[in-house]
């Protein structure tokens, strides 16, 4: 299918990048003077880095297809294991933020669209514009400053309390997780929610003058029912495609936010890999990220066809 082709192309791009970059994992990763050139040569042979490029490429592709991403130098574990631990964390963060952001954004948009041009509308609109233009990492820093330092409502970093979590009962452990999830998720949600609110508001206002809305009113439906059942159902459809489009954004936002809050997800892992020149980890991270995004878009497309009956028939 198309998605597979896309992922294949991404893998190729990443592979090409790795191999035209200066040096290889062994020139700098082991800047230990005790490591001799002979040892480096041996390692290269062991990892197949002295083979012709094409062979390496083919081997790499087949490995990726089988889910074998190699060995992470910095983590001393198979890359796939590192990713297996990190991906759920990012999904949890991104997923929560997605739900919060979309629900919040849509709700806000409805409030705005029911009284366009009013003070409420303009204030909320200015607010969403404010958050929309914000660098994610800066917002994360500010949120941390305000809600973890000045008002110690939330913990500063991490996914769980590093010391106490193991000793907590199940309910407390859940609470602990939620408390750590709250700030990063809310930060991410604020950013995506702003974009959603702007988009959804424009869509709602576009649908409102449509004829069927007048029919709905002529049937004696309340303004609330008209808005939520009739207008929103129609205006929501393009927003669903926005869902697919916002996945890459969510991912990248997560990268920064994970860094600021030390949230152990994919972004955090990739950045660590970057810092330690752990190329297998970085490349695998990028590929998996791209694959997740592609899958997500596919899912969004599917949702879109389910939501719009005019498209379903085809």
């Amino acid at each position: 299918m198309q998605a597979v082709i896309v992922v294949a192309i991404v893998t190729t791009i990443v592979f090409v990048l790795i191999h035209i970059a200066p040096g290889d994992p062994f020139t700098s990763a082991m800047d230990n003077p005790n490591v001799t050139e002979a040892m480096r040569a041996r390692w290269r042979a062991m990892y197949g880095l002295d083979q012709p490029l094409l062979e390496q490429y083919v081997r790499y592709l087949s490995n990726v297809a089988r889910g074998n991403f190699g060995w992470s130098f910095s983590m001393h574990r198979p890359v796939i294991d590192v990713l297996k631990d990190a991906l759920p964390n990012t999904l949890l963060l991104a997923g929560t933020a997605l739900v919060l952001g979309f629900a919040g954004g849509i709700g806000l948009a409805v409030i705005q669209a029911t009284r366009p041009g009013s003070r409420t509308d303009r204030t909320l609109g200015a607010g969403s514009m404010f958050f929309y233009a914000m660098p994610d990492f800066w917002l994360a820093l500010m949120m941390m400053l305000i809600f973890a330092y000045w008002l110690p409502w939330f913990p500063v970093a991490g996914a769980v309390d590093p010391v106490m979590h193991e000793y907590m009962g199940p309910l407390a452990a859940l609470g602990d997780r939620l408390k750590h999830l709250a700030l990063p998720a809310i930060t991410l949600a604020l950013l995506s929610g702003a974009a959603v609110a702007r988009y959804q508001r424009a869509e709602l206002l576009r649908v409102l003058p449509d004829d069927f809305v007048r029919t709905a009113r002529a049937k004696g439906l309340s303004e609330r029912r008209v808005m939520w059942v009739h207008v929103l159902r129609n205006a929501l459809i393009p927003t669903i495609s926005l869902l697919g489009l916002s996945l890459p954004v969510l991912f990248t936002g997560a990268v920064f936010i994970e860094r600021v809050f030390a949230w152990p997800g994919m972004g955090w892992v990739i950045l660590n890999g970057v810092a330690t020149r752990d190329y297998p980890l970085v490349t695998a991270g990028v590929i998996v990220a791209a694959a997740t995004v592609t899958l997500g878009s596919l899912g969004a497309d599917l949702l879109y066809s389910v939501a719009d009956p005019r498209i379903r028939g085809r």
Partner: protein
Amino acid sequence: MVRHAGVASGVIAVIVVVALLAPWVAPYDPIAQPDIIGLKNLAPSLSHPFGTDSFSRDVLSRCIYGARISLSVAALATAIAITLGTLYGAIAGYVGGAVDAVLMRIVDAALSIPRVLLLIAILALWNGLPLWLLVVVLGATGWFGLSRMVRAQVLSMRELDFVAAARALGASGPRILFRHILPNVLPTIIVAATLGVGHVIILEAGLSYLGLGVQPPSASWGSIIQDGADQIGAAWWISLFPGLLIVTTAIACNALGDALRAAFDPRENAVTMAELDS
């Protein structure tokens, strides 16, 4: 709407002018470290409106000089992206057929990689890039979306009457493309450019924050934020002000871009009545 665009342009103009006049406007030397013990990490005051950092450098001056880096990087990178995107999309849309299909598949694949991740990967592999190369890389990763839009427009315009007329008068392909079609695509490009600058400012700031973007001794707004990130609780002003500057500039770019888009698209204009002013 027009009012908003005016304010937005004004804000951008002020920032640009201040950046250009940095040597005359900045109260202190941005890299001077006069008194690492005495003047270190001072909170905002009259003599240092944005405070000082852990090297006793004046944050306001750093921000003013930082504006030069942030703005020029964003502007140049966007210019590169616009050029690449327009050319690529125009060719794909005009030539059509298999060429178009292949070109667009590549773009689709490129679009599926989150831009930041790609940049992180590239900048990590080639670290310590000189500034101009950073600009090129930023530009080279930002043209995919625009190429899709340009392609779509060129594709639809290709079949219009005025193109057939030009062809009948003997105009060649490239000539038609550049003199007839592209001027009509200009509004899209202008809007994309304006919004793009805003995006790149934020993007570059993020990369600099990670240490991958602008390298010391140059400092963009993002680098300054990174300086203050580790001591956010203690010296919050170091990270706060550059961030506010980024937000302001980005909002101004977005507002301007939105206003331009509304002005260019008459249909959108119909919807953008007073009620929609937001």
